């Protein structure tokens, strides 16, 4: 039985006099422990879909079931960890205090907090920096702190919204490897939004390709690359086949692409 079930989920936003349809009839089941990437052109609603699963945005129609509950119940049960493109760390908290934040909010017993925070910091390789402040760290390190924070309360589901989109290629590839280790270790189910086809294929058990707005599922590509995935995985012929397969279904909406390019230039 899937841990996340989306049944004909649609989302429309009011826009001026009319409305914009962001998502249309998205149905998808994600099994426990899966790593599923959402990929699609700018404005296809992939971030919206992630936020609907996380109960940060309500769907306009359709139903979402998470762990047998509504997304709201799952959120209140603290089933989610979330990572954004920006690290969203609090400047006034040290690295360890940032990682501890969810535990404080969830009122974990004080005695258990420190051990848990230290464990996560060791997992992301930042134990030596635990007394540093976020602004003293590089972008890649900041994002590692954000990942540690998302995993600290041992959530069943990890939601990631282009978490490595702002990082350079080398840092990104290193963090991809680390993320796979972490996901394996914590056995969290991961829903991962990305712009990068290679990243999606490298990380995922399945890649969900969305069409231009309104976002619909254009294709689901099963990734049958061997595990564990390593640097060598990227050199496999099968890796290139899968990247090509995903790219074939990835249609860039010309109008939106122009808007995206202008937005990026501003």
């Amino acid at each position, binding site marked *: 039985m899937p841990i996340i079930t989306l049944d004909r989920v649609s989302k429309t936003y009011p826009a001026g006099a009319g409305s914009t349809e962001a998502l249309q009839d998205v149905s998808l089941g994600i099994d426990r422990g899966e790593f599923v990437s959402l990929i699609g052109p700018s404005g296809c609603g992939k971030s919206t879909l992630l936020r609907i699963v996380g109960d*940060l945005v309500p769907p306009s129609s359709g139903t979402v079931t998470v762990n047998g509950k509504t997304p709201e119940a799952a*959120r209140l049960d603290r089933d989610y*960890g*979330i990572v954004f493109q920006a690290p969203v760390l609090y400047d006034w908290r040290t690295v360890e205090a940032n990682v501890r934040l969810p535990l404080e*909010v969830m009122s974990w017993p004080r005695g258990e907090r420190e051990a848990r925070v230290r464990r996560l910091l060791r997992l992301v390789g930042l134990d030596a920096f635990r007394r540093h402040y976020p602004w003293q760290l590089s972008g890649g390190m900041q994002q590692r702190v954000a990942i540690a924070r998302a995993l600290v309360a041992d959530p069943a589901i990890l939601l990631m919204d282009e978490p490595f989109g702002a990082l350079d290629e080398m840092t990104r590839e290193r963090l991809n490897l680390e993320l796979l280790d972490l996901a394996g270790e914590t056995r969290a189910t991961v829903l991962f939004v990305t712009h990068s086809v290679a990243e999606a294929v490298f990380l995922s058990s399945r890649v969900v390709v969305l069409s231009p707005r309104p976002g619909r599922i254009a294709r689901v590509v099963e990734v049958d690359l061997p595990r564990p995935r390593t640097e060598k995985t990227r050199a496999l012929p099968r890796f290139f086949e899968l990247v090509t397969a995903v790219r074939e279904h990835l249609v860039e909406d010309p109008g939106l692409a122009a808007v995206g390019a202008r937005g990026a230039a501003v």
Partner: protein
Amino acid sequence: MRAVREYLPAVAVFVLGVAVWEAVVFAFSIEFYLLPAPHVIVASLRQSFPVLLEASLYTFGEALAGYGVGCGLGVVAAALGSRSPALAGVLLPYAIASASVPIVALAPLAIVWFGIGPGSKIAIAALMTFFPTFVATLRGLLGTDPESLELMRSCAATEWQIFWTLRLPGSVPLLFGALRACTTLAMIGAVVSEFFGGPMKSLGVYIKSTASLFQTRQAWSAILVACALGLTFYGVVALVERLAVPWRAERERVGA
């Protein structure tokens, strides 16, 4: 070493300004009651230092009390306003209007209401500092970035937790901007209120009475003391800010 290089231009301009002032007074034989030369002011300052010190501490006490009351109420009102949009809606227009109303013009009325003693001065200083603090803190409390809020939501944080762990600490940089600006406002409020009446041993009354007797050098030495006090007040608050918001100074340094 960096501090020396940073402040050197300002110090140089100050020294140059004093020198030009001294030279102009000497060259044009300006009467001392019109514009006393700096060395005359310093001599007068030395002579009447005990009186000036007492007066300035008295006035500074009023300014500090008004500052505490005004800024304190400003923060509390902003905290309430951030929880209740209706309350913020009632207060904000007044806050904006207060920027165009010279609050010191209310000083004579304050004396009617709160008496000739420190009460009226504290009231004016409080009124002058309340609105800037309120507006800045409210902006800080409501200006939390959406993803930080989503993060808190994803851990099912209560509104109370969001306020204490996110909104309040996040508003501290803006709050300190207002607290710095309010130091000088509080001093202005206290000194100017004293022009409308107060005890002899206060800076405002001292400046007003010496100036009206053409004892210009005494008036100038009192202005000098008021200026030094204001700068010290500002400096102390800026120092506290550096300790409370270290990442701000750091970011300015690295230019982020």
